[in-house]
């Protein structure tokens, strides 16, 4: 147990002063702006939004700046901020089928309707340090134009080229007719398998969870939504309870620490699990969020958010109720957190062991272990509290060890004593 201490105000003030200085770094170097972080470090912004569980790129960038790049600290800051805001409502469920695609790949089918678009990816890069970035400075529009040129070269003869390159002046925009944009359609890969009954139906994991979720139902004053939608757990309103239904697990996993999920997902691949995954589809892009407004009586769009989604397809031997088929693990994140969504999908699948009647004998399949330790704000809080003054507590331990040593009589025994790990300290 830690104890309260008094004093040290001046030292604490000075420490914070020093921290501010450290954050600023060498004063002769230009101050890093939040806009720069938002624009040029988008992937860390995305991670902070996902695990901070709040979509707001500017605030996430601010948190990163304030935390001096300490991602977990930034996530903590964002989580703390979100507690100060009122909750307006729940959104309608986003429709990722209608995503404005920026990246979409499948590792299960070579030729998929809509095609595979690599998008902005590190895949197939050589992982060699690019020393030209050392010299990069100032404002630069050339890169963008360069990309556009090569695109236009590659698709010469396309009549829409000119309209796109035309300068978007106010007059032009008014004059033009706004026929519906014909964005390409990207059908979901898992739907192909589902049509052939080769993939588990959504209800198979629902049934077993129904009994659990019925007791801790959240009352949502939106009566128009179907009951199934309203029974989903909200961990910001009620604590996680076990056994957890899949909606609770997915919410916990979405805000879970990426490193933790990555390690657990990896463990299932190496042998601590038997889920045999394939990346059925990974897509990243923009989706519209809409929300029912009671006073209006209809749902309105709030804007677009960037999300990444991973459909993992896994083997399943079948059981007495279900024939052999593929099962699915699902991962999603705000922004572009591809590794996170893949790891999340692996863990989501291994946590379905219970519902599929599989043996729960690996760490990644034990939901209480996985879910109670996945939140990095919680875990860093408890680990970090060890820094707080434990002076009294430690004094008593010290006394005890001294006493025990005084009473200690070595037993003349040839065999080395077997050391048992001491139990978890009760604080």
């Amino acid at each position: 147990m830690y104890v309260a201490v008094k004093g040290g105000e001046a030292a604490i003030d000075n420490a914070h002063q020093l921290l501010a200085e450290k954050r600023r770094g060498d004063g002769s170097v230009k101050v890093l702006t939040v806009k720069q972080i938002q624009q040029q470090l988008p992937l860390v912004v995305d991670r902070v939004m996902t695990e901070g569980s709040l979509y707001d790129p500017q605030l996430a960038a601010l948190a990163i700046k304030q935390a001096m790049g300490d991602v977990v600290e930034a996530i903590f800051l964002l989580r703390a901020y979100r507690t100060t805001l009122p909750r307006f409502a729940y959104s309608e469920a986003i429709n990722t089928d209608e995503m404005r695609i920026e990246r979409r790949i499948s590792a299960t089918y070579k030729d998929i309707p809509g095609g595979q678009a690599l998008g902005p990816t590190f895949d197939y890069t050589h992982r060699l340090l690019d020393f030209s970035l050392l010299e990069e400075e100032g404002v630069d529009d050339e890169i963008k134009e360069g990309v556009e040129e090569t695109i236009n070269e590659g698709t010469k003869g396309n009549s829409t080229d000119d309209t796109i390159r035309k300068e978007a002046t106010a007059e032009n925009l008014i004059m033009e007719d706004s026929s519906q944009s014909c964005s390409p359609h990207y059908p979901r890969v898992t739907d192909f398998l589902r049509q052939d009954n080769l993939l588990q139906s959504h209800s198979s994991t629902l049934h077993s969870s129904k009994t659990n979720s019925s007791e801790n139902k959240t009352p949502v004053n939106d009566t128009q939504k179907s009951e199934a939608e309203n029974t989903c757990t909200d961990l910001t309103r009620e604590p996680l309870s076990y056994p957890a239904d899949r909606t609770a697990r997915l919410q916990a996993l979405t805000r879970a620490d990426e490193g933790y999920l990555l390690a657990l997902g990896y463990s299932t691949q190496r042998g601590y699990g038997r889920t045999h995954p394939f990346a059925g589809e990974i897509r990243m892009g923009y989706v519209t969020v809409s929300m029912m407004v009671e006073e209006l009586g209809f749902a309105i769009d709030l804007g677009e958010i960037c999300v990444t989604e991973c459909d993992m397809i896994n083997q399943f031997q079948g059981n007495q109720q279900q024939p052999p088929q593929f099962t699915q693990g699902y991962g999603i994140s705000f922004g572009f957190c591809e590794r996170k969504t893949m790891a999340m999908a692996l863990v989501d699948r291994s946590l379905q062991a219970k519902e599929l009647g599989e043996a729960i004998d690996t760490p990644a399949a034990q939901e209480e272990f996985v879910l109670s330790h996945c939140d990095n704000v919680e875990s860093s809080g408890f680990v970090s509290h060890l820094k707080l003054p434990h002076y009294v507590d430690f004094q008593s331990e010290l006394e005890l060890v001294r006493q025990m040593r005084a009473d200690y009589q070595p037993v003349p025994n040839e065999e080395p004593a077997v050391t048992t790990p001491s139990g978890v300290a009760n604080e």
Partner: protein
Amino acid sequence: MHSVNDVKNSHPVKNRQQLLSVLSKSSFDDINRFWQSLSIVPSYSLLKAPEVGMTMVRAKTGGTGQAFNMGEMTVTRTVIRLNVSEGHLKESSSEEKGVEEKCVEEECVEEKYTDIIGFGYTAGRDTKKSELIAVVDAYFQLPEYTDLIEEKILQPLRNKQRHQEESEAKKVDATKVNFFTMVRGE
């Protein structure tokens, strides 16, 4: 997009939904630029001053299954009521198209308020944008302004969005791959 189709009501609601959708996805600067071109001096009172809050975003398990809560997003909302009387409107619109004088309180008190409420909901924390959306939404409900706003604000914003989406889609298209399966040991 699915939400637009969900609504049972016919045209007016749909149009407003589309209006609010386009506005929420546009920047304050863009909306304001086109709004200013109408030279309307808006007169309204705030029913709900611009307020920053959150919406819990829901996703679906497996992309198509049961809904679950994935995380929150910041949202700003404003609700306004127009302080414009019907008679006043007709006068001004017949006098000079699109130009309206600011409603002086004493004049309006005698006449009947049109009782038009405008809603401004938008992702993020831009209070100015939220308020402007509410104003545009309110004026859009006045028959005198519906077509004007459709033509001078909605259309250009829509076109701009389309431009952006198309040029982005083009860049993505350029990254499309055709993988060939190699025979092992070849």
